[in-house]
């Protein structure tokens, strides 16, 4: 009974422990140059490294979601947290994309300091202030640079991806020279800790909403922020469409294909109503359905309707009845 075979786990019977006075750890904040160091928001290169850092985290998050094919179902908690991270970054990018260039470098610090100072989770108005200001110089381009890598990833062209992102920060560097930043990854982190504005995706979307234009952006104007701004809400399902594809189906590729400018420009078409099956609405590709005509609708409804419907005949339906049926289908 006391000899342990190979199957039985190792048991260690050890002696005493005593609660002693734990040594106080001195956390030298400047040791790693990280957390705790207060960096002025007006630091130009720090913005650059912030963007770079954000991009890195964005890439890591994407890779976590899509390169990992486990035999067992991935942890939903992990997927949700990574998705939230991606959404937050995307919201930030959208915010920056919405701000017009030609922004004086001196103005942002004051505004940026504000959201940082009064920060709490409930500070959406501060969000509309141009917090990471120099980024907006390359605003839409930066957004593009950040968005297209996803499709580039799909094209197995990591080089383009790697070069495009530095291109954006290169443009963002303000002409005024500042003391060269530490090149290390960790110092960039430090900046992020300071500069990352508080946000949740919902707040960002709310901040988005009032600012967004109602009209759709023209197809030939990818630079126009209004197109990007397109009412936070309908846009979100489109951009975020395939992110939760992970939730239901492990093998999801919808996110990468959906992330094109077309989605942003034509995002005012809310196709979520045409998801007939609420259960599969989570899969990214489902919401790409084209608008459905009333006839098609009736054909689908035929099995469920108590009244016999002859699909071939033109059928006049009461408008309210149609609405009711749509509600039932959408499952609201």
């Amino acid at each position: 009974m006391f000899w342990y075979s190979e199957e039985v786990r190792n048991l260690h019977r050890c002696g005493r422990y005593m609660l002693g006075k734990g040594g106080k750890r001195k956390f030298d904040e400047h040791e790693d140059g990280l957390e705790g160091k207060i960096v002025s928001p007006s630091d130009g290169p720090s913005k650059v490294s912030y963007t770079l850092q954000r991009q890195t985290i964005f890439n890591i998050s994407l890779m976590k979601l899509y390169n990992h094919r486990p035999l067992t179902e991935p942890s939903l908690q992990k997927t949700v947290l990574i998705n939230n991270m991606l959404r937050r970054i995307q919201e930030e990018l959208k915010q920056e994309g919405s701000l017009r260039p030609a922004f004086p470098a001196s103005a942002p610090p004051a505004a940026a300091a504000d959201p940082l100072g009064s920060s709490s989770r409930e500070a959406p108005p501060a969000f509309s202030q141009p917090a990471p200001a120099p980024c907006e110089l390359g605003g839409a381009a930066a957004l593009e640079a950040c968005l297209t890598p996803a499709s580039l990833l799909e094209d197995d062209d990591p080089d383009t991806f790697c070069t495009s992102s530095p291109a954006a920060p290169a443009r963002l560097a303000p002409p005024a020279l500042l003391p060269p930043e530490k090149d290390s990854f960790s110092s960039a982190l430090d900046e992020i800790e300071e500069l990352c504005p508080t946000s949740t995706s919902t707040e960002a979307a709310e901040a988005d909403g009032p600012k967004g234009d109602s009209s759709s952006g023209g197809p030939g104007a990818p630079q126009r922020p209004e197109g990007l701004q397109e009412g936070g809400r309908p846009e979100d399902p489109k951009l975020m469409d395939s992110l939760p594809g992970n939730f239901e189906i492990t093998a999801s590729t919808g996110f990468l294909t959906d992330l094109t400018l077309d989605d942003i420009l034509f995002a005012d078409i809310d196709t979520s109503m045409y998801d007939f099956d609420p259960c599969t609405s989570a899969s990214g590709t489902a919401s790409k359905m084209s608008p459905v005509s009333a006839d098609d609708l009736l054909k689908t409804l035929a099995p469920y309707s108590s009244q016999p419907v002859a699909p071939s005949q033109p059928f006049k339906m009461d408008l309210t009845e149609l609405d009711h049926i749509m509600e039932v289908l959408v499952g609201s």
Partner: protein
Amino acid sequence: MGEDTDTRKINHSFLRDHSYVTEADIISTVEFNHTGELLATGDKGGRVVIFQREPESKNAPHSQGEYDVYSTFQSHEPEFDYLKSLEIEEKINKIKWLPQQNAAHSLLSTNDKTIKLWKITERDKRPEGYNLKDEEGKLKDLSTVTSLQVPVLKPMDLMVEVSPRRVFANGHTYHINSISVNSDCETYMSADDLRINLWHLAITDRSFNIVDIKPANMEDLTEVITASEFHPHHCNLFVYSSSKGSLRLCDMRAAALCDKHSKLFEEPEDPSNRSFFSEIISSVSDVKFSHSGRYMLTRDYLTVKVWDLNMEARPIETYQVHDYLRSKLCSLYENDCIFDKFECAWNGSDSVIMTGAYNNFFRMFDRNTKRDVTLEASRESSKPRAVLKPRRVCVGGKRRRDDISVDSLDFTKKILHTAWHPAENIIAIAATNNLYIFQDKVNSDMH
């Protein structure tokens, strides 16, 4: 006390070289029963090993009530979900003991999808002297039977029998993360990422759904349930924690579906510590009620917090477990360590709390004296009867001789599962595939 010459000491030469770890042997949960006499562990291979404490005897004073293997059984087997083409792991996520009501012991063990009720009984007598069969059970030649005899119960070597009494299956679409037995001893709850179900211990074909946070549109999902527990005394109260760092106390008397919480415990974010990873490190990995029922203990990635049930605005105590990791969050995100789920534990009198960390370190915080200690669970530093030496992690500045620097921490050696004896100062620490039991024998030296 001198070297232990007792032959019952573990012979290390039989043990597997612990630099090679079989995945199936990784301990995934540790739990004392209500008296502390039994200690159950579950592992990734779906097995449950129960240890029993030897009664202290005056004849062998150095046995000191040690734990030895009592029973081993295979609780769960790997399954395959044909619909999703995915494996269902046999890893035991949680074990919870039922209060003992007769000579038998019962426990609930669960993997991602199925909960099982096991009954553990002892057999130390067996009938002997049958008329029709002999001692091996073979039928006797009837011509040799000349007289009738009455079978008699004779003592035998102790045999521990384990049998599955109930299987609670198909109750969860998502992965079960916690189970908790109600103080009414009739019901228990199981929580997965999005739902919490209430079961009756005797009924396996249905359960009540009491919490459902699944959004109508899965694309809107931003928060999941991470842990849940029943209140130790009030059978109507339970708490569940979320990935956003909030705790919800629910009262089952209020409504059948407890989506609306009675109390919401949430600490406002500290703006000076805000980062990309703020949300992830605020995710609560474990929640435990104190034995008194007055407090709750939560563990998030960097801290443990004590909450008073009467105060929802913020915890009453916060202890830093390994704040030196705050600057390394991006690397920890990259290697997935930031998603590690550490558990936490109260001692019997609710005065000390304990939790694990990396490098096989675990931490204890005394709530009264505000002193804390870091200890290590490893074979090298722990000989039987040796006193554990406090460890220290240095983050720069002055470095003492035995300090470990942050960069040399081994993040593969994580202590996720710990348990504290309900009454005495005995703790069980699971370090990957090794189980360590430490006893505080300071007081026992008096006699």
